[in-house]
């Protein structure tokens, strides 16, 4: 459009373009934010760099829509089972560490800020800001995963597994109790759970089997919390946070590639489409966590 594009060595390019059939390697230059000329990387089938950028971004948004629908399915599963067993859901939710979840939320929000700050850096042709913020984003994303690892570790320690062994021993304190918040009953091992006979490697499970003679009342009390329904909660918890964590991992790889290419000088204010698109991806991962966090940890 109004972009002042200058063609280097006009006749040469005309030949070249015909021979190779692609204008990919920056034959065209455009004036950047800082006034220097940078390769526009405009493909011949786009009307303008602007159009190319917007088309690429729209493609990214379409991908993000599929991401929203992917997690949407899991939110639906969450919602249905929450509606069916609300009290089990609330009890199981207390097994999660709210403060760790909140810390992770802040970490992820901060990483979103560094990501957008990186984009702002390259929009102003400041490569140092770009690379620095990309690395900061990678660091924060890694911190998120480390916290996540400790969360999983803690749950494994209590015997909450993605599979069948989700129950806790009866006297296990919940995380909420440890942090001084009144909690509901811990989820307990129920005796007569047929599938667990083979899985008796857990100390927690061993404790559960000691109590062979439960009174009717105790069994009735446990019925509320144990069942296999708390297992549904934790299955959904592991699935949602796990798939989210995989997205974080993919994001780390993508941002790492960006940082590497940025270091080699691939991006400028004229052409930074990959940075923009990875940024969008990163923000959608953030938005998904924004919804996962209250649903899992808070309510």
């Amino acid at each position, binding site marked *: *459009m*109004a*972009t*002042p594009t200058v063609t280097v060595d006009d006749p040469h390019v005309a030949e070249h373009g015909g021979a190779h059939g692609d204008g990919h390697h920056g034959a065209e230059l*455009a*004036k*950047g*934010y800082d006034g220097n000329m940078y390769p526009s990387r405009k493909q011949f089938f786009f009307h*303008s760099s*602007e159009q190319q*950028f917007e088309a690429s*971004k*729209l493609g990214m*948004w*379409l991908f*993000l*829509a*599929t991401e*929203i*629908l992917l997690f*949407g*399915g899991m*939110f*639906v599963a969450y*919602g*249905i089972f929450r*509606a069916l067993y609300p009290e089990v859901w609330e009890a199981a939710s*207390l097994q999660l560490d*709210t403060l760790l979840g*909140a810390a992770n*939320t*802040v970490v992820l*929000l901060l990483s*979103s*800020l560094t*990501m*957008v*700050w990186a*984009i*702002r850096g390259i*929009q*102003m042709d400041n490569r140092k800001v770009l690379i620095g913020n990309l690395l900061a984003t990678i660091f924060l994303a890694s911190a998120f995963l480390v916290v996540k690892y400790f969360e999983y570790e803690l749950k494994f320690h209590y015997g909450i597994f993605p599979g069948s062994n989700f129950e806790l021993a009866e006297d296990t304190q919940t995380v*909420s109790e440890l942090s001084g*918040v*009144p*909690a509901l009953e811990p989820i307990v091992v129920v005796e007569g759970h047929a599938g667990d006979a083979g899985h008796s490697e857990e100390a927690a499970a061993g404790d559960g089997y000691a109590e062979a003679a439960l009174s009717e009342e105790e069994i009735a009390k446990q019925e509320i919390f144990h069942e296999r329904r708390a297992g549904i909660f934790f299955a959904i918890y592991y699935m949602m946070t796990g798939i989210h964590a995989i997205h974080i991992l993919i994001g780390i790889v993508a941002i790492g590639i960006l940082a590497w290419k940025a270091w080699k000088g691939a991006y400028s*204010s004229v052409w930074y489409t990959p940075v923009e698109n990875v*940024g969008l991806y990163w*923000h*959608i991962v*953030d*938005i998904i966590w*924004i*919804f996962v*966090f*209250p*649903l899992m*940890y*808070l*309510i």
Partner: protein
Amino acid sequence: MAHDSHGDHGGHHVFDSKILIRTFVGLLVLTVLTVVTAFGERAGWLPLGPLSVPVALGIAGAKAFLVAAFFMDLWHDRGTNLLVFVGSIVFVVIFIGITWLDFGYRGTFEESVREPLDIIQEQQLEAEAANESVLERFEAIPLVEEADPVLFGTEPAAAPPEAAPVDDAAPADEPAATN
């Protein structure tokens, strides 16, 4: 300065640092708010009751709006991306809504269909049994007899009204039983 280059290189909007920082602060405040709400609810000094889920989701929605509008720059973007984003959310809402209609009302319509077959038939049987027991009592106790000496002088006048309810009840029973 930013505006000059804005025109120069074809409309890439440079993020405003102030807006970004404000957005981030807003996100932090909302995060603290939702965590405090949850803790308050657990400790009991903030009884939200059924509002708990809507409040948490509302705060999450506000945060998502901030991220989408200012970090993902939908606020300054062209409409197409917003359409895709909102469209995907609409479909998720349809997904949740229709699944909820299924689960929320599962069994309701079945029962209303099944009622004539099971429950009403059972009610009919019960009504018949009740009628029979009542009939016995009608035969045993002459209800009108106590009023008779004061109001009417004649004894035989009491007999027809006693027989009348028996006759009324019996035909009423029969169509129900045959049905």
